[in-house]
């Protein structure tokens, strides 16, 4: 049985989070089932173009301007969105944590230098920077992931630095130094475990913003031309927005729901992991 105060127990009592995780599970299932349900792939022009949803029972969500099955596109799009969201977040988390940890741990010159570097990234609007990076390379999954992680790590670095600055003067950290721990050991065994909660929470929220960024890039035509993503779908429908608005609206709703789901899960994690909210 799950005890009321265990992590899962606290998470489970957080109903929005449960809703979020259910939605997220659905998106994951879509991503996994795409090749099973639609073995022909998303790119095939299978029907008449611009079929409205429900017009043809073979295409419950209709077709786009080239006659591609929107349902199949939506399923394959989930794969790309999740892939980009997760990999970009992972990369950004690693970079952000390392830079923030180094700044907070060493302080002084290292801190000033690293934070100056971080600010350079923060003074440019993330989306503009991402556009520049992707445009500079050829748009591909890899370059998109790099661009998104490049603009996503600074807030995390600041967060980790703040956590470290708070922990450094704590006596258990001093005790670690006195017992002769190496810097790496100190960071890995004493500091990181005590800073991990906010890292997890903000990383989980970062997945959502990565998905949004990707959608934005693809909408502007900076998506990977070989990857069917929700952003690409929205981009395709752009020209017929006034007549066949469903072509943009359906993938748009998918993005909205996925981002909402991830935010709900992030909030739930925050409440469940935060010891101060435990005894409420």
């Amino acid at each position, binding site marked *: 049985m799950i005890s009321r105060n265990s992590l899962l127990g606290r998470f489970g009592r957080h109903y929005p989070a449960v809703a979020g995780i259910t939605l997220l599970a659905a998106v994951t299932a879509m991503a996994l089932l795409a090749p099973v349900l639609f073995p022909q792939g998303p790119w095939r022009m299978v029907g008449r173009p611009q079929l409205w949803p429900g017009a043809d029972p073979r295409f419950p969500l209709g077709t786009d301007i080239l006659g591609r099955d929107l349902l199949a596109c939506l399923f394959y799009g989930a794969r790309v969105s999740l892939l980009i969201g997760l990999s970009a977040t992972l990369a950004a988390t690693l970079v952000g944590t390392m830079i923030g940890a180094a700044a907070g741990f060493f302080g002084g010159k290292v801190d000033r230098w690293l934070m100056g570097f971080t600010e350079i990234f923060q003074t440019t609007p993330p989306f503009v920077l991402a556009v520049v990076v992707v445009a500079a390379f050829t748009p591909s999954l890899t370059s998109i992931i790099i661009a998104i992680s490049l603009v996503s790590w600074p807030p995390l670095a600041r967060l980790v630095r703040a956590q470290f600055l708070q922990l450094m003067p704590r006596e*258990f950290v*001093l*005790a*670690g130094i*006195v*017992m002769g721990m*190496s810097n790496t050991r100190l960071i890995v065994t*004493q500091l990181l475990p005590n800073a991990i909660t906010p890292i997890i929470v903000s990383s989980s929220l970062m997945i959502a913003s990565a998905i949004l960024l990707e959608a934005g890039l693809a909408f502007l035509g900076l998506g990977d031309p070989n990857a069917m993503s929700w952003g690409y779908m929205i981009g395709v429908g752009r020209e017929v927005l006034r007549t066949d608005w469903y072509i943009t609206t359906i993938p748009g709703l998918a993005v909205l729901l996925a981002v909402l789901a991830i935010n709900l899960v992030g909030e739930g994690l925050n409440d469940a992991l935060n010891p101060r909210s435990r005894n409420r």
Partner: protein
Amino acid sequence: MTEPLLSIRGLRKTYATDKGLLTAVDGVDLTLARGETYALAGESGCGKSTLGKIVAALIAPDEGSVRFDGQELVGLSPARLRPLRRRVQMIFQDPFSSLNPRATVRRIIEEPLIVHGMRGRTERRRAVAEMMDRVGLRADAADRYPHEFSGGQRQRIGIARALILKPDLVVCDEPVSALDVSVRAQILNLLSDLQKELGLAYLFISHDLSVVQYMADKVAIMHLGQLVETAPRAAFWDAPRHPYSQALIRARPNPDPRRRLQDKPILEGELPSPIGKRQGCDFRSRCPLAFDRCTAEAPRLHTLGPAHRAACHLVEGAAAPSDA
């Protein structure tokens, strides 16, 4: 004469603040023998904690030397310092922030052994179990987390962590000031038992003179970064020479209901600021015996007897002529 365990010479530490240069430790000399307890007492901000952290090599001084068992600690590279670290350990004030909240008690006590490369999990476990027993922790505490324990129990965990490396010197930074009276007695007794068993030397930092009186073989009183008096136990309590020491001893609340506050002379005034340049004796603004010379000239430490020194113009006449 054999080499002292710890010998501090001309130690200085300053901090740059918005308002100017703060002198935390201002030219301190101190010598500590093996197995001895030297208490460092004074009011908050007097620099006693900074001095303790310099000795534990947590802070580097601006000037001066800290020799431990003949080896200079100041300016040593981290790699050269490591083997010495196991011989100088520290016990902290706050039993709630001094233990890693994410580690089990066993892990906390075992950590120093892992850091210093003690191989063999079973051997380490045995050492941890022995140490836990020695500091009065039950064996079933090993798998629990710090927040499950009371302040006193947590302080025992901190003591076990400090002593498992069998150090020669332990810097105790206000080890009982966060504890309740009844628990305080338990921890003080434990510290003095362990000292006898393991031959430890303590640099014992405390603002509480009652605790100092119980623990210390020698007492050093600090005031604004400087030592104003150092003395062996008996000399300090029977014949303190510095007016500040005398005032602190008088100010100590004593559970004797016939000595009422209204009948006691008390020190008026506030501590001068430790920031910026100072002239004359730092204590003169609060000193009942201050005279002209105290404004003009800072007194230096005069030797009054074996290990007994005081920094006051008034003891000059009584000082041994050969003080250095």
